[in-house]
């Protein structure tokens, strides 16, 4: 369907498309098999100027917003959700600085993030704080001109690969939700180290590790925004980034559909291509309908978010749930269409099915997203 993109938006699609077709797709199976971080592909993405899509021009970026990022991520998601996740997680790590950081902080980090020479990561989750962020135990205590961090963050995407980390720590336990703050930690800060790389079901070419803080001392000015505003920045960050996860579902769903239709036209059983069986045709039709509906919703949500920064939550959660549940269903059906071949690693759809699952979990599980939509409805209908 034609979404009437502007000429520049079309260019973003073309640039991302070419990287996906020429650099990502030929390498994705090997990267997955070896669980190898896609360092070179991310360099290609950097050379193509795409790391700066959402960063204002005054900090060396393109000056786009949520929708422009979505257009690029749709292509990357079509190629490999692991590579796309590494790209998206860097944006997630930079958003807190962009949304709440001081001018000096933006000047210090954003130009390098925009050029792709610096990658970022976002660290909220801990062993006892998954969906429930109030379980955070990492602390930050001001000691003279320095903050002293202690605690462990878990399952952090890009950990060990990024140069800067936007982390959430408790600065005043007695203040509850107002007692958390965000900080920038640099790769080289003393007392900061990483856990071993996690072994995952899918998105294996992405890096997931712990962040370990043992009396990690960072300068006072690494506080992002004001003390106690940590959770507000977290909520704004995730609202802004979730359409990016949603669109990975769309890209992935599209890839699964493409593989399925191509295969169904050439696979012959009972003397006919299997696409001539109604059971297969209906499955393909449902896949196509769901992918297109998800795309339309994510595009609309991303445009809404770009225009209404104060009222993003519902649109953001809605599109994340819809498009990622779709991706799980469509990739599962793709394996069904290819059947035994689909189950083999020689074909790309088994990886797609493994990769789809994470989309329903990270950046807030789909149950939590439904909670958000429900709570918003409750507020709206008073």
């Amino acid at each position, binding site marked *: 369907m034609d979404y009437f993109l502007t*000429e*520049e938006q079309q*260019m*973003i699609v*073309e*640039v991302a498309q*070419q*990287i996906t077709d*020429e*650099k990502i797709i030929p390498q994705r199976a090997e990267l997955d098999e070896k669980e190898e971080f896609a360092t070179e592909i991310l360099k*290609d993405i950097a*050379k*193509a*100027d*795409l790391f700066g*899509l959402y960063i204002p021009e005054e900090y060396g970026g*393109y000056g786009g917003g949520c929708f422009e990022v979505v257009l690029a991520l749709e292509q990357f998601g079509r190629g490999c959700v692991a590579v796309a996740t590494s790209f998206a997680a860097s944006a997630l790590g930079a958003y807190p600085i962009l949304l709440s950081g001081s001018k000096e902080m933006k000047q210090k980090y954003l130009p390098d993030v925009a050029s792709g020479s610096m990658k970022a990561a976002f660290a909220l989750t801990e062993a006892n704080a998954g969906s429930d962020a109030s379980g955070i135990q990492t602390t930050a205590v001001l000691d003279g001109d320095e903050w002293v961090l202690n605690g462990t963050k878990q399952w952090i995407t890009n950990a060990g690969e990024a140069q800067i980390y936007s982390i959430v720590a408790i600065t005043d336990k007695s203040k509850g939700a107002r007692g958390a703050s965000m900080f920038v930690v640099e790769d080289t800060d003393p007392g900061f180290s990483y856990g071993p790389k996690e072994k995952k079901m899918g998105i294996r070419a992405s890096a997931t590790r712990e962040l370990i803080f043992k009396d990690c001392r960072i300068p006072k000015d690494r506080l992002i925004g004001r003390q106690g505003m940590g959770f507000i920045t977290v909520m704004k960050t995730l609202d802004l980034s979730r359409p990016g996860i949603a669109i990975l579902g769309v890209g992935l769903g599209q890839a699964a559909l493409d593989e399925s239709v191509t295969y169904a036209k050439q696979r012959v059983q009972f003397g006919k291509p299997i696409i001539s069986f109604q059971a297969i045709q209906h499955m393909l039709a449902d896949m196509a309908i769901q992918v297109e509906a998800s795309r339309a919703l994510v595009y609309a949500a991303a445009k809404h978010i770009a225009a209404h920064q104060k009222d993003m939550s519902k649109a953001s959660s809605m599109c994340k749930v819809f498009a990622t549940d779709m991706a799980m269903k469509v990739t599962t059906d793709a394996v069904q269409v290819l059947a035994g071949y689909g189950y083999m690693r020689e074909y790309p759809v088994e990886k797609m099915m493994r990769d789809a699952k994470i989309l329903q979990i990270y950046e807030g599980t789909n149950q939590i997203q439904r909670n958000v939509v429900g709570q918003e409805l409750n507020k709206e209908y008073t």
Partner: protein
Amino acid sequence: MNIIVCVKQVPDAKDVRLDPKTNTLSREGVESIMNPYDRHALEAAVQLKENYGGTVTVVSMGPPQAEEVLREAVSCGADEAVLVSDRAFAGADTWATTYTLMKAIKKIGTFDLIICGKQAIDGDTAQVGPGLAHRLNIPFVTCIRNITNCEDSLLKAERLMDDGYDVLEIQLPALLTVVKDINEPRVPSLKGKMKAKKISITSMSAEDIGANPEQIGLNGSTTQVVRVFSPEPRGEKTMLTGSVAEQVEQLIEKLEAIQ
């Protein structure tokens, strides 16, 4: 350092077919692309610019639609683009082409280095790079697979050979042709694409470059394509496998069978 890269628009090899009746190339529905070797030449030039400063100018002799490959080159890092185009250039062989490119490059001005792809995948002659260097009276080296350094007008590079590679020092100005091993060409960048859309491409006609009408196009060509045909398919091949002893045995069996 000012670098000139020569690029050619060619039909995408994977689409080209020979019409079996007329024995001519059937170009219908065939997409045009930048000659693949030239993408590597351009990448080499852009990398040199990034490392040592300077400008990259791409030049193409071709019909007006060759502008597409020039814009693509700009989106991949070239600074300036020149299209050398005139009906009078039609039918040029490599001799007339090198004359025309030489005149255009003289018109463009000074340069330190010219980089070409090893060959174009349509004609496959590999003559234009060396021929152009000859016309300009500068040294050339073909089949460069790596450029390792460039200082004080001295370029260090590696030339691919059948059995390894040569390490060479080349005094600039010079011309190089490159093979695909030299680099992994980048895809267009967003800023590059925006620039490519806006850039005005310099167009040069036969008159603009002061070409002698006797030396361009068909007139200036010393060779003519008389006929294009598909070579006879070679006889069927059989690969023998197994240990040497087994293969010898199989071979003897086959030879005896022929007898």
